[in-house]
């Protein structure tokens, strides 16, 4: 849902689209192969980037970003992965300025992404 919302907002503001990098980080490296990730993201935008890695690397990335680490329940092919649906917005100053939980409306993205794009190291 969030990827669709963000894609829609970026489509509305082409200048913002050029300045924004959307990075989707998988927490299920077993199923999310690079091909699967690419196919999934292309449904929203061919500019969106997908990242995956080993289970340890992805766990370390989640901890570094202060995201509750994903947990795997069950065994065999029907295992499920419980994970947060957060989107973390980083501004041009390189800092994560906002965390958006599931349920964030498109109008919020529309407003916030434009504001975040103006935050640079110089603007404080």
């Amino acid at each position: 849902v969030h990827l669709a919302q963000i894609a829609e907002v970026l489509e509305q503001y082409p200048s913002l689209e050029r300045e924004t990098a959307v990075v989707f980080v998988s927490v299920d490296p077993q199923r999310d192969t690079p091909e699967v990730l690419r196919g999934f993201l292309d449904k929203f935008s061919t500019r969106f980037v997908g990242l995956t890695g080993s289970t340890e690397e992805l766990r370390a990335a989640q901890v570094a970003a202060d995201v509750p680490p994903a947990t795997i329940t069950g065994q065999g092919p029907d295992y499920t992965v419980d994970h947060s649906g957060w989107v973390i917005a980083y501004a041009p100053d390189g800092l994560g300025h906002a965390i958006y939980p599931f349920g964030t409306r498109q109008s919020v993205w529309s407003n916030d992404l434009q504001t975040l794009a103006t935050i640079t190291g110089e603007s404080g």
Partner: protein
Amino acid sequence: MITWWCVALEKPWTWSWIPYPGIWIATLLPIAGYLVAVRRHPRPIDWRRLALFLGGMAAFWVASDWPLGALGAGYLASAHMLQFLLYTLVAAPLILLGTPEWLASRLTSRLRIEKAVSWLGRSPVTCAVTYNVILLATHAPATVEVLRRSQIGSFAMDILWLVAGMILWLPVRSPLPEGRVGSVWVRMLYLFLATGVVAIIPASMLTFTTNPVYAIYELAPRVGALSAREDQQIAGILMKLATIPVVWTTIGIMWFRFARQEEARA
């Protein structure tokens, strides 16, 4: 647990059938009541009226039940709009057309609303205002958000739409002849104004707003390739354009009947 009426499910959409027994009961009870009443009545069954009534109830069932009811309750604004149009422009007028005068009279007098229904049918302004107030209220984002999340709320919205449709069509086609607007010109003008003016506001809002207005459809798992905004735009276009064929066909029929009567009189 049995789900009685279509409600927002908050899980990915699948084309797996879901039973909604409340909808079957709400569809079959009036049909059974109608059939018992016409069989007991001394006059022979009017098959044309029976077909119209069954057509109206079929439209009610299609609008309420899976898949359209489920899609409209929690996935697509366009399905929600299609439901509204089916209730108000198809089910309601067909039910009114299919109800014989003696049955309408008996039913309304038992419910002690005969005078109120007759008065309402002769008051096109009241009907137009009531219909449009319901239209605006039930398409307000807050109303959709609250009502579609519970079975009772969802049921209330669907029934309210059917009632709104009946109120809309009363001045034109009330089963009680004394409860209709007499002048054909007033009827035609009424139908045009009641359906074509106020609806432009929500229809334009849905078509031209940059962001989705209904949280329930925006945050629902997507159905097919439609984005939430495209889905909302289809809803807006449907709201504006779908009334045109129904209303103008009705106006055309009224006009030709009137012209034929005048010709015969001359």
